[in-house]
């Protein structure tokens, strides 16, 4: 099957090399993947800009105001104005901060968050790579970030940053187990760790949100905790910890962290759409359109939760994770196994 995210860069790379009269297959291969990476980053960043705009507009409406409306058509270029403001700010390295930890965690967090999108397919013919275990790989890359957050909180040499980093770890220990068990129930039903196989199975049978509704709810709560959005944003709780582990980061570094959190929101919504909501399947419209409609619908749900729910306390998160979500996810995997061995699905 034709993969646009590979074939178009391959055409461009071949054209460039033929103009330069270079005939090296390895160089062609390398150049193809470099161009494909740039295309993927552009696709993700355009989505992130739209997501931030959607969130600001919707939050405004939820709070009975209008949101941004001055810069550009309907305030769409407000994000660019804010990004420019961040860009001209001074980058401060706090005194006594650990510069290796302070700067390397920025690279790790931004890179690992962008890396998630490489294994998330967006349509049957629009994906970056399609490994056999792409679902597991996506969660493995998701799991790298909390480690970098702890180091960032420690390296800032600030009490609030350190507390934010610790809270991130405690939160990760509470949601990671139920989330992975829920994912296993999907894998039990679909019989594959591959996103494309899971979506094809759902297209042939039924969206997994119907038989695994308990798992869907558990996964929704866990993924919101994973991407650290408002009901579960204890690591950077503004009212308690200044800005948590991001407190000491200034200027463009802070802007990059904010962008990264939206990349993770996008990836989380995309994974939820792929494993529970039937991915890109749907009538009449092309697959990419259905994928983005569903992803934005899930993101609107995230914004709705952010606007209407209060923040959960850190000890409440641990109780919720281990006393409620874990038993529910075990019930869910039991349902999946029963459906599988009874031959209903």
């Amino acid at each position, binding site marked *: 099957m034709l993969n646009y995210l590979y074939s178009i860069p391959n055409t461009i790379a071949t054209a460039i090399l033929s103009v330069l009269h270079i005939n090296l297959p*390895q160089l062609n*291969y390398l150049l193809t993947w470099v161009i494909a990476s740039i295309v993927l980053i552009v696709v993700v960043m355009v989505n992130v800009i739209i997501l931030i705009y959607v969130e600001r507009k919707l939050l405004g409406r939820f709070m009975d105001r209008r949101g941004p409306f001055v810069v550009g058509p309907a305030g769409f270029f407000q994000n660019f104005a804010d990004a420019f403001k961040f860009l001209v700010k001074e980058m401060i390295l706090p005194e*006594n901060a*650990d510069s*290796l*930890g302070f700067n*390397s965690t920025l690279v790790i967090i931004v890179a690992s968050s962008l890396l998630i999108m490489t294994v998330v397919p967006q349509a049957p013919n629009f994906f970056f790579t399609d*490994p*056999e*275990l792409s679902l*597991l*790989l996506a*969660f*493995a*890359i998701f*799991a*790298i970030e*909390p*480690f970098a957050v*702890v*180091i960032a909180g*420690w*390296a800032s*040499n*600030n*009490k609030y940053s*350190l507390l934010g*980093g*610790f809270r991130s*770890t405690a939160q*990760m220990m509470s949601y*990671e187990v139920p989330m992975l068990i829920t994912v296993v129930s999907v894998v039990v039903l679909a019989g594959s760790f591959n996103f494309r196989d899971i979506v094809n199975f759902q297209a042939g049978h039924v969206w997994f949100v119907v038989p695994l509704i308990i798992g869907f709810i558990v996964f929704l709560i866990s993924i919101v905790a994973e991407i650290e959005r408002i009901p579960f944003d204890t690591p950077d709780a503004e009212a308690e910890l200044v800005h948590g582990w991001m407190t000491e980061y200034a200027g463009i570094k802070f802007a990059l962290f904010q962008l990264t959190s939206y990349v993770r929101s996008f990836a989380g919504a995309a994974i939820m759409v792929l494993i529970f909501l039937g991915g890109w399947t749907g009538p009449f419209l092309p697959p990419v359109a259905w994928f983005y409609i569903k992803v934005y619908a899930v993101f609107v749900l995230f914004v709705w939760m952010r606007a209407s729910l209060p923040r959960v306390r850190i000890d409440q998160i641990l109780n919720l994770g281990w006393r409620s979500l874990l038993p529910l996810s075990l019930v869910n995997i039991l349902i999946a196994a029963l459906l599988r061995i009874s031959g209903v699905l």
Partner: protein
Amino acid sequence: MSIDLIGFILVAAATLVLSVMMVLSKEIVHSALYFAGLLIGIALIFFLLNAVYVGIIQILIYVGAVVVLILFGIMLTRRDILLG
């Protein structure tokens, strides 16, 4: 030289350098940082050997859980703001 061989040499060299730096580092949190990089390097070697599942589990368990728990332990031991 094939691309696989070049990739293996780069990854193996980076893993070796990281492991040496992990042992020589004075600051114990830096050791943990290098340790995580070292574990990712080992996962990449598993990928190059076509053992994708082992590599993914390596990242998920070691980088995602074990290193974070080690950090959680060592951060409660010593740093200026913790001494007060």
